[in-house]
């Protein structure tokens, strides 16, 4: 089962992501409301998530900074940026995000990205 970590400071959106992912049969291993918490959860996770849905504008540590750190720790996890701030799209993709979803986006857009990524996921040796 695909494992996802949600990083989003808007709790309403966090909850809705959980609902969507549940309907897609995806396991949510955790949710963080800022970049620092995301890194902490990521480090502590015994099995690393396959996908992270990452917001950008968050308190304490933003999505770009968190992505850089996570990618440097472990580059098998695919990061989907989900932000209303289109100005960070180029930077997000440069530092290792595999997709950028501009809010507001449809469920099918998220579903398609996850499907696409899940096909690329290779079992860890």
């Amino acid at each position, binding site marked *: 089962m695909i494992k996802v970590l949600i990083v989003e*400071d808007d709790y*309403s959106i966090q909850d*809705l992501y959980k609902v969507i992912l549940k309907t897609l049969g995806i396991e949510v291993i955790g949710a963080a409301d800022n970049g620092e918490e995301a890194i902490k959860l990521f480090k502590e996770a015994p099995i690393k998530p396959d996908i992270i849905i990452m917001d950008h504008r968050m308190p304490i540590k933003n999505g770009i900074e968190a992505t850089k750190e996570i990618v440097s720790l472990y580059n098998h996890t695919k990061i989907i940026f989900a932000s209303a701030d289109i100005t960070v799209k180029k930077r997000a993709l440069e530092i290792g995000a595999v997709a950028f979803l501009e809010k507001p986006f449809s469920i099918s857009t998220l579903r398609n990205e996850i499907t696409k990524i899940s096909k690329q996921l290779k079992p860890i040796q």
Partner: protein
Amino acid sequence: MNSLKDIKFKAIFDKIDEPIYISDPETYEILYMNDILRNALKNEKIIGQKCYQIFQNLDSPCNFCTNNILFGKKSTSPYIWEHLNTHLNRWYKCIDQVIEWHDGKKVRFEMAVDITNLKESESNYREALQRAEFFKDLFAHDVNNILQSIYTASELIRDNKKNPEMLDTNDLIEIILNQVIRGARLVSNVRLLSKLEETEVPLKKTLVNDPLKSAMSIIQKDCSEKPIIELEGNFEKKIMANEFLVHIFENLLINAIEHNDQEIAKIFIKISEISNSEGDFLKMEFKDNGKGVMDGYKELIFNRGFRDDKRSKSIGLGLSVVKKILDMYNARIWVEDKVQGIPSKGSNFIILFPKS
């Protein structure tokens, strides 16, 4: 040397509307000043006095004196710089030039153009830019987050028709309703924040009780799940405040209700009087049974506004509005854990109003 009769440009300098003076770089004595500067200073005995005394009200040469730059370089081009004269509280654009005095000595010529109005315009322009950035950010982030929630919840309700057992649509409808309220509140707080920036409403002795009751009544009317609000202390106290006081209480109550997972939000409001080394204060505490505020967020939650702290919590402007109004009252606000060290047990928002 007291007159400028030997300088062929005297007539021109005296006609220029900006202050001009010439001084000796070694003695700092003023050798000449034009009519506009002489009239402005209303002092007949300026020639021969020290420039730093006359223009800056100092006892020794200014630490920002440009003589070293002016006389230290080979170039004959003017040295142009900007300076805030703290004595006159005016900004000047200074154009300094080495010229030859009638006895052949190299002296300092300075024309100081008053750019105070320009500086104020620049400052207003920067402020306007910050506001524009703020609104852009608000739309780019908060409004789109609200739209995202409404969009996703609506799609889930639509798709759920195919599989009605999968989700509780009532929860999703509740999300949509909450997001609409959140949007309306955001608009209301943006208006309020904007008003706070643009207008100055004088403070007067104001009873705490009346705006508090108004805020409680607004909350009870608007909330589908009625919160329990308990009061302790004598609220018939006066503080120096204005019409915005009600918005402080309203936003604190909304905050306690919105960030709350309990079936019924409970808010305990206490008023007391305290004295410390800083003075006498009226202390108000708003304790709730909500989710609490994690340590890293305790300052950030008050920091959103036109001069935005980009690390601030993204949702809502309520607490920033509260902080802004309290700044106007010279009051302080901070948040503590209701139970020390356990944020999840709820928050205690504390305000200290100076006693009027």
